[in-house]
């Protein structure tokens, strides 16, 4: 059995099983009061790729930060890997629209930041970081500095750093939103390839319907005032995904379905 098939098999099996992320009536109110998120209830299975889509103000970034443990919800509760969220955890990693690299550290040292913060950097850590840089397509740029890289390459470094943190649940907040269309498309394809190789679970925030559908197993469609999950849409396209699939009937139908749900909000 090839590794590819094994991962799919594993995902298939786990999809029948319990969710690794669950939210029960999760709500977030900011002083004002503004209801940023209203009674979100959801479950995410191991290895699933979830897109969160919606217009600005729909609470998608708030939901992501609650799952990350960076925000405490004002109501409801979130469980990750069987235990309730009380703060950031090593099994959960986050990536942002900005690469958030440290300009004074080499690409390699940026990837090693999780190790540095954990207290020590061993030779094995360095080897792993170099491997991860190869995985994200940055062979030859290990000792470059962020300032010398393009925006797309900086996000690749951020992705390698995220993978090096050892997180199983990856929370991506519009990670390629600031990049041009072509770079974004390539990075999306590579993100899916990498996910299939390491079997991570991903929550991916975007406001691009095509991107949401192309990447996800399921799309959480969110609407604002108050922010809530209005619908969960399955994407039945087979994996590995290809650009050609975007021309398929299935793809267009799903995208329009989401568009209709968002309807009055965009």
């Amino acid at each position: 059995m090839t590794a590819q098939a094994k991962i799919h098999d594993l995902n298939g099996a786990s999809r029948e099983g319990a969710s690794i992320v669950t939210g029960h009536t999760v709500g977030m109110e900011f002083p004002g009061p503004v209801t940023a998120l209203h009674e979100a209830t959801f479950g995410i299975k191991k290895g699933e790729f979830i897109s969160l889509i919606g217009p600005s103000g729909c609470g998608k970034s708030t939901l992501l930060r609650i799952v990350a443990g960076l925000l405490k919800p004002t109501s409801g509760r979130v469980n990750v890997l069987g235990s309730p969220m009380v703060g950031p955890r090593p099994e959960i990693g986050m990536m942002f629209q900005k690469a958030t690299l440290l300009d004074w550290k080499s690409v390699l040292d940026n990837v090693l930041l999780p190790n540095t913060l954990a207290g020590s950097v061993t030779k094995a850590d360095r080897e792993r970081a170099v491997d991860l840089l190869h995985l994200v397509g940055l062979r030859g740029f290990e000792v470059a500095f962020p300032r010398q890289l393009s925006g797309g390459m900086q996000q690749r470094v951020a992705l390698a750093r995220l993978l090096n943190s050892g997180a199983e649940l990856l929370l991506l907040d519009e990670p390629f939103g600031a990049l041009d269309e072509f770079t974004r498309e390539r990075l999306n394809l590579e993100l899916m390839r990498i996910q299939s190789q390491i079997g991570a679970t991903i929550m991916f925030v975007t406001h691009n319907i095509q991107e949401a559908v192309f990447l996800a197993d399921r799309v959480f469609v969110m609407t604002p005032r108050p922010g809530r999950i209005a619908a969960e849409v399955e994407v039945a396209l087979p994996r590995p995904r290809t650009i050609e699939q975007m021309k398929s009937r299935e793809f267009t139908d799903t995208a329009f379905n989401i568009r209709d749900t968002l309807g009055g909000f965009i």
Partner: protein
Amino acid sequence: MTEPSISDVPMEKPKGMPSWVQHLIVFAVFIAIWEASVQFQWVSALILPSPFDVVVAWWDLAIVRKLIWDDFFVTLTEVLIGFGFGAAFGTVIAVFSAMQPTFRRLVSPYMVALQVTPRIAVAPIIVAWLGFGMEPKIAIAAIICFFPIFINTLTGLMQVDEDRMEMFASLRASRWQVFRHLQLPGAMPVIMAGYKTGISLALIGAIVGEFVSASVGIGVLIQRFSFQLLLPQAFACLIMLTVMGLTLYGAASLVDRHVVFWKHDALLAKISRRLRTRYADLLSRDRSVQAVKEPV
């Protein structure tokens, strides 16, 4: 807050003859006009000494009679020690203020008071307290250079990018780690700009102190020669101060360049080369296939 300096003004790349030749020509023209204005008595030689007189006076003071070197080094010592104290206090208080909101709130009115008071006005008081030696000049230099160093360090430490902060939070970084790996290096460009402003201000402080009361120092010499209307000698001393100022600023810029190395492409390329040698083994390894177990 970074105070702009002439070295920050964008300069076009020279066309035609090399840059230094152009500078030399401009300098020669400037000196020639100066010399001519004295020679043809457009300006009285009593008011403006000719460049030639200034050079002669400098030669006499510095080389023949070796009169100004003791004063030069006294002033330089005052500036360096004064800057050291100003930088140490400014930095430490700024770090405390950045880390402790309560401390920052309590201290800020005094900082505003210090900012709006003309700081050289304390010079006579400091002299009254500390007497006529080097101590009051050091104290005045320290007080004058303290403020830009404090304010730059504080603003630098406070202006942390929110996204990077969240990234550190998601990696469960401690407060000390955030300071050590994010805030401090991120603030370094602004902090160094404060030091560069501070070193020039420390020189002003030392000279003001010498004007108020002193028996040695370049400031004393300028005052003494001016009173005696020995203007070539006064100008010669002024040039010594320009040289001192340039040297100090140049040294600060050099340190700045190496501390904030990541803003300079040439330095980055050099460091990359060094790292490539150090990690030669690591970088030549090819285990990605094993790590991935998948055709890409």
